[in-house]
């Protein structure tokens, strides 16, 4: 996996509720990566960070018709494009 050169890339863990993001790539491998992709979190897909749980973790994402929840730990392995 090539390391991003200068500052660390933005991940789904870094955005605030209500914001949109486009997925760039996954850092997770194996089963976790597969599960994330199967649930629709594929590169170039747009997601909205809907909210985080009352205690801050896990978070809820919305993509198309589905709502997904995942822990921040996994969210921090999903890099997003820095477009905005």
């Amino acid at each position: 996996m090539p390391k991003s050169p200068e500052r660390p890339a933005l991940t789904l863990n870094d955005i605030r509720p209500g914001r949109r993001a486009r997925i760039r790539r996954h850092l997770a491998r194996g089963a976790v990566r597969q599960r994330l992709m199967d649930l629709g979190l594929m590169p170039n897909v747009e997601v909205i960070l809907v909210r985080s749980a009352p205690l801050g973790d896990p978070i809820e994402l919305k993509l198309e018709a589905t709502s997904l929840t995942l822990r921040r730990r996994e969210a921090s392995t999903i890099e997003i494009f820095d477009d905005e």
Partner: protein
Amino acid sequence: MNERNDLLVALAGQQNAGKSTLFNMLTGARQHVANYPGVTVDKKYGQYSDTEGVVRTVDLPGTYSLTSFSLEERVARDFLIQERPDVTINVVDGSNLHRSLHLTLQILEMELPVVLALNMMDVAEGRGLAIDQAALSTRLGLPVVRTVGRKGEGRAPLRTAIRALAAADKPQTTKFPVTYGPLEPDLVALTQAIQTTPELTGMPARWLALKLLECDAQAATWVRERLEPAQAEPLLEQAAALSATFERNNGLDVSDHLVSCRERAVSNLLDGVTTDPESGRPTLTDRIDRVLLNRLAAPAFLVLTVFLIYQIAIVWGYELTNYTWPILAKTRELIAGVLPEAGFLVDPYTRSMGLWLVDSANTLLNYVPIFLILFALIAMLEDSGYMARIAFILDKVLHRFGLHGQSTLPLILGGVFAGGCAVPGVMATKGIPDNRARMATILTVPFMNCLAKVPLYTLLLGIFFVEDKSLMMFYISTMTIIFALLVSKLLTKTVLRGEETSPFVMELPTYHLPTVSGVLRRAFERTWIYIKKVGTIVVAVAVVVFTLLQFPGVPEERMAEFEHRGEAAVVAFERAMAGNAYQRLATAEHIGPLVNYYNDYKRAKLNASGAEGSRAVNARFEQRNPEYYPLVSRPKGDKDARKANRYLRKLSSERKSIRREMKEERITNSLLGMIGRSMEPVTQFAGFDWKINVALLSSFAARESSVATLGVLFQQDEDQNASLEERMGAETMAGGATALLGTAIILFFALYPPCLATTVMVKVQTGSYKWMIFSIVFPTLLGLGVASAVYSIGLATGTSGIAMMSWTYFSALALLLILGFLGGRSGRNLRSTSVDSTETGEVRA
């Protein structure tokens, strides 16, 4: 295919798509349905018949795709590949077609005949989503059937489509193969290699080639199983080399490439097939969640939910038992009437054993109304979709202590605050995807407040903590979750360290209105599991405990003494009755039945409610034996009857005290008594004497037995009005017991090993006797350790029971908070560490 034309049909699809609902609709079976992803974990068989023959149907676990990473996917995939069902029904969520079709394409690659069941079309249409079914069917080359599982719509067309597809002579080939761009040449080469290997002809070649290129571990195993190593290894090496070259040239994982090719294929496929005018508009579910999952309101709603469950199921449920208990009591009376009559001093074994069994079963059956309500409410939570939200809200706390958001359901069933039963609780751990958290949940669910612990708590509070009752009750009901979290943390850090973990990635399902039939069915099923436990294990153990308490019995010379006293009492009665108008009743043949009649009458009067009931009892007894009746009813003006009644009372109470002494002697001498005494050297540090040991031993059968056994140990005369609390209090207090002992017993009981039925369930769920034994030994040691420490320290420092309880409670709470806080710190550090799937997640701060 034989002439009766039997078929094998599989239901496959993504999680929560409605497979089990359609399975139930097709076969009339009762698979568990819940609005929660990953409910079905094992495959389930059912069948139905149509005009042509029997259709065996299999409900497969829901899978998002068909890799070999998770157990459900392996189960589903193995079935499809190895059994090659005649027809596969691919159940897709019509309101989420895009994602669902990823799986469809993978099933098609397995070269299986597929019927596409477009389920949840009510949701899709409600959202204004239009699907051109004809176009979808033509593009995919598959029959497409619209279904609404929840309302039972689509059964006939689905069955017809199954038959039609099975009858088609030429095997269905999809008109929609996915092309994999730059990987295609490699894929073709490998497919050819597979096709030319005769041993692999049964396998869908292109699919196997794809799996080998993905470096799927299980696919490689299959190849190795079927081929000689000399043949297998070159093939696997070829696949590995192609895959490595592809990854080098394209800078892309093969699996990722496959997913993105499928994604493109699905987008093309759906282009012009679906129209979604309201896309992006908030759905009803979004709007509900905005309230229910609101950061501030969410905890309040959660607490309210738990409170409502508690109030409705436990509080009102208990009130309901006021109406159901008389039924059980009447059954007992009926059985008592059928059994041989009581002897003067010694009852026939059939009688005492029969009544013992009925009493043991009745204590448990008394909870049935509570469980029905409790399980119905929980089924409503599951079916509505809120249960998944609870997991979302609580995951952080639970995860910090080694559990998982999805541990919520097992913990609630086990009775977090409200009371429940560990057996269905442990059963419900099946769906937890993270193995380590699942094990931790299985081992901690038994610490919850199972309803059966309540009677002992109530008893002990009544004896030792009359003034601090509500404070103690608060401690007891909140202590369990504190202990459970601490134990879970401990186990996760030690014995469970090496278990596999996986992340919490879950779909939040759309809210549905729970169906009445679904909820009722679920409630009855879970209650039935509980009743079966009463009917089998509890009754069996009750027999064992009874036997252990009866033998070897009262020593002969003591028995002779008792008999002598009994005879003396009878003689005294006869003498007193001399000259009485009722003297004819004071003969050997009458005295026994007369005393029983007298006792039955008194008990009946005691249980009769109101003047009305009392009159009915009188009438019944007058009818039962008009001759004896005056002696119990004491008619006005009949002096002799009044006198005779007095003598009868004296005789009866003398008989009772002899019987009580005999019983006590019998228990002291009994096998169980010996076992209890032999444990005293160890349990003395916790303050337990042999009687308490015996009670705690018998509660292993079922928690509620503890109170029953204590009831026997602190015998009462049948018409003595002293409650067990008073008797036990009087006796133990006389023995120098204090509230400290009460605290020790309560703490021990809170940490007590699961009952027999639960340990059996632990064996089923963990699949190992090792864990079953662990689930017994560990809590025993822990409970004994805590109880001994508390008792000894309390004794040494002269601290009162309630103070020791407070100390224990707040120490545990403090420990919990410290661990929670530390866990949080190390959790934050994790973010910067590298992540991969096999990492166990324990990085020290």
